[in-house]
């Protein structure tokens, strides 16, 4: 029997997710928003592995495998888009990238 109950892992994951959400909502720098999104993905991964352990089912670990691959693909494309945006507009500040507004 493990001495750490599952609710501790889930609360930690919720806390990390909440911190990531705050970061994604309040930062102006596009890269920092991206970092917060990676934090949220990690919190989700932690939840999946914790539940996989509790239910004795390996499916959770497999889903984490796929989430990591998708996160890598998303990071690559997102950063490439940031580079393209920077070349065109010379800024990453999301407050100033509002060409499509209104």
């Amino acid at each position, binding site marked *: *029997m*493990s*001495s*750490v109950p*599952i*609710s501790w*892992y*889930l609360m*930690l994951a*919720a*806390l*990390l*997710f*909440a*911190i*990531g*959400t705050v970061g994604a*909502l*309040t930062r*102006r*720098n596009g*890269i*920092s928003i991206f*970092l*917060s999104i*990676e*934090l949220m993905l*990690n919190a989700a*991964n*932690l939840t999946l*592995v*914790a539940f*996989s*352990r*509790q*239910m*004795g089912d*390996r*499916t959770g*670990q*497999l889903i*984490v*495998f*796929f989430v*990591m*691959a*998708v*996160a*890598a*693909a*998303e*990071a*690559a*494309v997102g*950063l*490439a888009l*940031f*580079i*393209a945006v*920077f070349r065109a507009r010379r800024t990453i500040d999301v407050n100033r990238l509002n060409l499509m507004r209104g």
Partner: protein
Amino acid sequence: METFIFLIFAALAVVSSLVVVMHRSPVYATMSLVVTLFSVAVLFVLLGAPFLGALQILIYAGAIVVLFLFVIMLLNLQKEGEAAGRWRGQLWVAIPGALIFIGMVGLVFWRQGAPDLQPLTPDLVSLKGLATALFTDYLLPFEIVGLLLLVAVIGATVAARRAPDAADGSGPLPREDFVAEETARKEARP
């Protein structure tokens, strides 16, 4: 012992994630993300997924964050300035909102009690079991993710390229007047 390790790395993960979200310099935020990813990898190992822990370090900390650092240095991003007055209220809304979120989650689990984790079976931890499941039950998602990565590589390469006929002549193809000049020079020489 396990509780001790969990508490240390959980605290480390929370502190470094706070630094990621709050520090003004993007390079410091990225390095704190590495610490967070490392702590989460240790927690994966504690939860009986050592393969995922190693993968986390290999993929996330060893490749994705390096990509972030590259882009930060390529774009020469400076520290963020102070938030303008109008946006400071956003933080006062976001933080209580986040706390309510945690509170709700916590409430769910305190109500349900704290069920203990099942003991680690060698079957759950085994790499062979994971690999077998990946290549038999989950073969279709595996292939689709491979395709997704291919699409991402192509997309990233195309998105980050300079336009070939950029007005400032910075494209990978040489400008037409330069090509004409070189051709004329080569033809002039006997």
